[in-house]
């Protein structure tokens, strides 16, 4: 029998600390599959965020650095500029990337340094127990919006990908999801493109992945998928937002 699916080489056999059904695991897998397919495992350096994926280095079979909360783009800059032949990627949550690290990602994108970012948007702070993220939706109840996110009080949800399209240095910005096989396949293409771009020296590339946090949303993994489709996807439309290869 031929093998249809097996654990990618670039993943370790460690069991993740992620909650049941958490999309972090799927996103990890896609990244690992892409690293395998591109044959770059021995020259890839990943950067783990502060967030549920803080221990990402336990799950990837490649060199990894930690980064202070939000500063993965800066750490990536230090790693990449000193070793331009290496493939450097950051893996960041919405608190990490969109909140505390907003300046760093904006400047990385605007500079256009040749780095890849995987951005996990689960509309919440998973690691710290479910507080509002910049991407939390109107009305969403979280640990810090106990009465629901009120736009007057808590401000508006942030569309990071749309904002970053306005930067000169972004080569590729896309938003995917992983809630069914079709989207898993589409999103994997995006991830691959984002890595391929770096190999081709095209500049900053980012894939935002709409993800569930069943635990902090207070939903079962399957209900969480439905909530994502009903609430997140309409507000954060999927698709390629910028692609210098297409735009030219």
């Amino acid at each position, binding site marked *: 029998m031929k093998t249809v699916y097996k654990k990618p080489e670039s993943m370790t056999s460690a069991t993740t*600390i992620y909650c049941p059904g958490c999309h972090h695991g799927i996103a990890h897998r896609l990244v690992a599959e892409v690293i395998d397919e591109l044959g770059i495992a021995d020259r890839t350096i990943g950067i783990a965020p502060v967030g549920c994926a803080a*221990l990402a280095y336990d799950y990837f079979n490649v060199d990894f650095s930690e980064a202070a909360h939000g500063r993965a783009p800066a750490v990536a800059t230090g790693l990449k500029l000193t070793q331009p032949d290496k493939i450097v990627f950051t893996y960041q949550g919405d608190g990490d990337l969109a909140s505390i690290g907003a300046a760093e990602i904006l400047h990385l994108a605007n500079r256009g340094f040749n780095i890849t970012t995987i951005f996990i948007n689960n509309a919440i702070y998973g690691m710290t127990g479910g507080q509002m993220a910049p991407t939390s939706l109107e009305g969403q109840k979280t640990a810090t919006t106990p009465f629901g996110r009120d736009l007057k009080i808590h401000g508006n949800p942030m569309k990071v990908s749309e904002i970053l399209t306005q930067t000169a240095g972004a080569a590729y910005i896309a938003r995917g999801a992983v809630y069914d096989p079709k989207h898993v396949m589409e999103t994997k293409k995006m991830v691959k493109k984002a890595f391929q771009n770096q190999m081709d020296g095209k500049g900053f590339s980012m894939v935002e992945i709409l993800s569930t946090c069943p635990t902090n949303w207070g939903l079962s993994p399957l209900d969480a998928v439905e909530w994502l489709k009903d609430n997140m996807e309409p507000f954060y439309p999927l698709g390629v937002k910028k692609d210098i290869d297409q735009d030219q």
Partner: protein
Amino acid sequence: MEHKIILAGFGGQGIMVMGRLLAYAAMHEGKNVSWIPSYGVEQRGGTANCSVVISDEIIAAPIVAEPAYSIIMNRPSLDKFEPKMAPKGVILVNTSIVDRDVERKDLDVVNLACNDEALELGDIRYANMIALGAFCKKTGIIKLETLKKSLKNVLSARRQNLVEINQKALEKGYQLV
């Protein structure tokens, strides 16, 4: 007198509420008391546990390293805490879920099929109160009445309607030992 207690089980088993109830009741009986959860990454999927210390004096160490008492609601918790128990400690084990016996010979073991007993009351969610009621009788650290009275303090506003059924569970557990 100082009583060092560990309550442990899976996340959804109401371990923290059980601990808080014990702490409230002790406070209502005029004792010094502390409650502290073990917090951290290990919580996810692993065991949840909390320390309760009840004392006549200032509590020196709220985190219980060597419990004299414990309520063990699942197997991983038994594996984790059995070796840590103080000599001759009292250990209450939820045999509905825990699939092995306590190995240490010095311990004073109470085996109770909490889930099954709770199911008789209509829902396995009351297993924690069954356990606590039994613990109350066995140890005498706290009065059953105080536990029952304190329930309103630990149930959220939305759940006040569950006071009565939880009181029943406490009583049932009390009777079972």
